[in-house]
């Protein structure tokens, strides 16, 4: 296509690019800054001004952070929480969404309403805490997984995706002799890669970044998640614990700032690595060829 832009359109496009550029920079710069600081020597890190690339690279802060047993335990706990939590969320969400997506389900409208209701009105922090306590889940890893295992929003999103799968596939499978379980696990779920990848990513990010519930329900440090340690280091400046037993020679190769930055990067990278693996599911067209449309 080739057409002439009017003056107004040119101005609009320039302004558009400018505003979006500023927003993009304001988002990307903190990342670059933290990565740059985490890789810098103490002298370089304490220098003011813009930090885009470290002029003198030092991995001392990373070595310190990754050799800390509490952080490594947090890493393990967060990973366990993320993997188990996401798996259970996907299974439970599909099991809830499938019957709600079926036209023949009795009282489907009422059930959907009741689920939607929980999106708007929730018990709140204190009732939730009391419930967890009554269930005997305090200081248990299940307290971080079960209460958030199934959310109304995820159920509605998956339900809507299931409803977009042509009804004729369900009918065809029924005539082929498939039970509802077979249809769900062998037809619907394999066709729902995009939505399940999306829900999985949301859930993984949620579990990885969650801090507040762990602070409320977990008292034992051996069960504590990574974000709690990050909070202690970044917000409470508790870098001394990491520096315990470090020689004075080594201590001169990092500062509290580089330790904080390295901890932030260590907690960020795993979840950022997940995205490329899930990206292929986001591509559209999985239904291509199934039905004419």
């Amino acid at each position, binding site marked *: 296509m080739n057409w002439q832009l009017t003056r107004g359109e040119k101005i609009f496009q320039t302004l558009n690019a400018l505003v979006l550029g500023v927003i993009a920079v304001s988002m990307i710069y903190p990342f670059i800054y933290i990565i740059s600081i985490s890789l810098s020597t103490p002298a370089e890190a304490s220098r003011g001004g813009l930090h885009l690339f470290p002029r003198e690279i030092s991995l001392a802060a990373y070595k310190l952070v990754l050799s800390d047993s509490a952080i490594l335990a947090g890493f393990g706990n967060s990973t366990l929480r993320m993997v188990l939590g996401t798996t259970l969320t996907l299974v439970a969400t599909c099991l809830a969404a499938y019957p709600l997506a079926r036209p023949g389900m009795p009282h489907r409208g009422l059930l959907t309403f009741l689920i939607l209701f929980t999106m708007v009105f929730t018990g709140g922090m204190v009732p939730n805490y009391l419930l967890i306590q009554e269930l005997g889940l305090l200081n248990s890893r299940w307290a971080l997984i079960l209460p958030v295992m199934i959310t109304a929003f995820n159920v509605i999103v998956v339900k809507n995706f299931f409803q977009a799968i042509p009804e004729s596939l369900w*009918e*065809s499978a*029924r*005539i082929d002799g*498939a039970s509802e379980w077979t249809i769900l696990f062998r*037809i619907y779920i394999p*066709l729902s890669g995009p939505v399940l990848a999306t829900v999985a990513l949301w859930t993984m990010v949620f579990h990885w970044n969650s801090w507040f519930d762990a602070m409320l329900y977990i008292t034992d440090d051996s069960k504590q998640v990574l974000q709690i340690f990050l909070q202690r280091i970044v917000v409470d400046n508790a870098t001394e614990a990491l520096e315990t037993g470090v020689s004075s020679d080594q201590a001169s190769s990092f500062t509290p700032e580089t330790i904080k930055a390295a901890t932030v990067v260590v907690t960020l990278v795993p979840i950022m690595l997940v995205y490329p693996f899930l990206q292929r599911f986001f591509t559209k067209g999985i239904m291509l*060829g199934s039905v*004419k449309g």
Partner: protein
Amino acid sequence: MAQVLIRDVVKVYPGNVTAVKGINLDIADGEFMVLVGPSGCGKSTTLRMTAGLEEISDGTVSIGPRIVNDVPPKDRDIAMVFQNYALYPHMTVYKNMAFGLKLRKFPKPEIHKRVTDAAEILGITPLLDRKPKALSGGQRQRVALGRAIVRDPSVFLFDEPLSNLDAKLRVETRAEIKRLHKRLATTTIYVTHDQEEAMTLGDRVCIMSEGLIQQCDTPLAVYERPVNRFVAAFLGTPPMNFIDGRLTPQDGGLWFTNDHGVKIKLTGHHAELAAGKAGQDVVMGLRPEGMFMRPGAFAQNEEQTLDMTVDVIELLGNTMDVFLSNAGGDLATARVKAEELAEGTPLKIHLDISKIHLFEPGKFGQNITLPETVAAVPG
């Protein structure tokens, strides 16, 4: 194989919408029955009730010796081909065809044999490892056919399977379905809205409208002896022409006349059967191929002509459709041999009286020129 009996079947949807109003249909073992009609006539609903995909509000459907109203689709011994193919997109062609057999726990060698045999019959052997997205529309529909035939069911159900194909492919696949039916001789119920498909495929054609069967008979019978105006109008391309008028006794004979100067002498069985309706309003139906621009072997009688003017001509190769009108606004289309003809030319159209029908007024007006034995058996 099995016969299918549909008895007083009614389908009422929520909101008290009645889609099927108590139909009766006997489909013989090995018969190819086509249900045809306009959108919303109840043909697909009837098929889906037979498949078990819709609940039956009243009446019974039997496949073979048993009533299947409460039998789930998988236990009805049927296979269905859908309009939109309904192939499982994440499975290869082989797995699509094998899926139903696998669920029925057929041994692997048997599954392999059935799938490869069906693929051979349909010429899709080279496609077995492909996924549906790598197939053309025609290939997908053949896979859908293959998925149905591997099951070796008692009844095949087709729900407008050719609607999504282009015209050329539709004709080819139609012939393939016909060949397949001859080879397998399985009882088949085929739903379409395309009257050409219905006429070419069916052993019998069942024309439906407004939830009722209007007529069910062989393709030739429904075309030549339509029981009412709806059936007459639905079948044929171009459709039958209709001219409003009345039966007028005159000069010792019975004439079809109207105020626009139309005056046609009824002879033979038309005059006999319409004699009792003299003086009444009727609608005359004329097939386009029963109208000629000059007298001939089938249209010799000068008292069976229409004075009309050529409005538009559509050339179709060796034939042409001539759209005609008269001063009173009566319209007609004649399909005649192609020749030089100018628009605006006045013509005396000669009628083949054997192709004329007289109907009572109204959309479903009965054909009064049929022997009573034919008119009394609509379903």
